[in-house]
């Protein structure tokens, strides 16, 4: 195992953002690598302390936007690549649709956490692909889970005695996305109840429900596809229609 691959591998395992700058063009030190961390620290060198300092500054800016780019420094080209940690998908409710959803999410590189208070639903046999299985009541667990701007939450329990406490617990967190399974009528009832319990509209309006893109399928696998497709669209700020009907970038 090379030192370069070891370092990449260790950093990926830590699941924290970092950047690698590689000298890809110019007359000297092509192939040299600089590792940059969000606290401004670095490892290795591109072979020139002044270049390291300039690249470090640019890398911190690119990292903040999760972007990767080739930049020129005089005659030297440096590719600065951001390695962002994997997004997390928290699935509340180990129901049938959750099974293909967990599989799709794993293929797309998500860390998948399935939570259900009912031990018969959240089993390893049902969710061999999940990174974590939590047999806990969601409203007890949510305050202790790392829910941040790269966390996506899907509520599939589809039962007010789970859905309402879950949404209430989520209302003080800031995930990137919350989707909740259920019809328009179910959504209206849940929202009325939560509003009565003092949950603000600014939060309730951010919940995607009925959940998913309008793909038309009704099987659990097709519904899971509509949900994961919506998550991808939200991640990249897209509406999720046909590409042929979208104007070119």
């Amino acid at each position, binding site marked *: 195992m090379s030192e370069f691959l070891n370092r990449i591998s260790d950093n990926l395992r830590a699941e924290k953002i970092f950047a690698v700058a590689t000298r890809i063009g110019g007359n000297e030190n092509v192939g040299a690598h600089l590792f940059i961390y969000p606290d401004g620290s670095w490892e290795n060198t591109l072979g020139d302390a002044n270049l390291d300092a300039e690249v470090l500054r640019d890398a911190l800016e690119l990292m903040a936007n999760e972007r*990767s780019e080739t930049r020129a420094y005089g005659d030297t080209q440096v590719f600065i*690549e951001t390695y962002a940690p994997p997004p997390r998908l928290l699935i509340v409710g180990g129901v049938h649709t959750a099974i293909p959803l967990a599989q799709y999410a794993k293929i797309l590189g998500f860390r998948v956490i399935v939570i259900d208070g009912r031990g018969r639903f959240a089993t390893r046999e049902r969710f061999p692909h999940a990174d974590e299985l939590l047999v806990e009541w969601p409203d007890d667990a949510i305050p202790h889970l790392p829910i941040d701007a790269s966390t996506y939450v899907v509520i599939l329990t589809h039962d007010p005695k789970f859905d309402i406490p879950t949404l209430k617990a989520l209302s003080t967190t800031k995930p990137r996305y919350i989707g909740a399974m259920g019809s328009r009528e179910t959504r209206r009832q849940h929202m009325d109840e939560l509003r009565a319990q003092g949950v603000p509209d600014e939060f309730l309006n951010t919940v995607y429900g009925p959940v998913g893109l309008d793909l038309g399928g009704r099987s659990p696998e097709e519904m899971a596809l509509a949900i994961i497709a919506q998550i991808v669209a939200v991640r990249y700020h897209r509406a999720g229609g046909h590409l042929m009907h979208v104007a070119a970038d």
Partner: protein
Amino acid sequence: MQDILNDMEQWRARGDEVALATVTWTSGSTPRATGAKMAINSRGEFVGSVSGGCVEGAVIDQARAVLKNGKPKLVSYGISDDMAWDVGLACGGSIKVFIEKV
């Protein structure tokens, strides 16, 4: 990277040399974005991709040359000349791929 790292580690563990190809620049419509990666070993096996299949064959050849002489290389691919069946991108965009021994 995560998706190809296991293969790269296994190749190295069994004694193969490994090259890494990374898309470092794109222009216009391209099948894969900046940062897309493909790893190639000294036997010519590969994992991952840098395009939709259009230039992988050429990248494998370049990677084997990089493994032989140890010198990294930046290679550009542009619009294909469909009369000549040249190596290129059918989608009309262009990419630069950096190939290094790792």
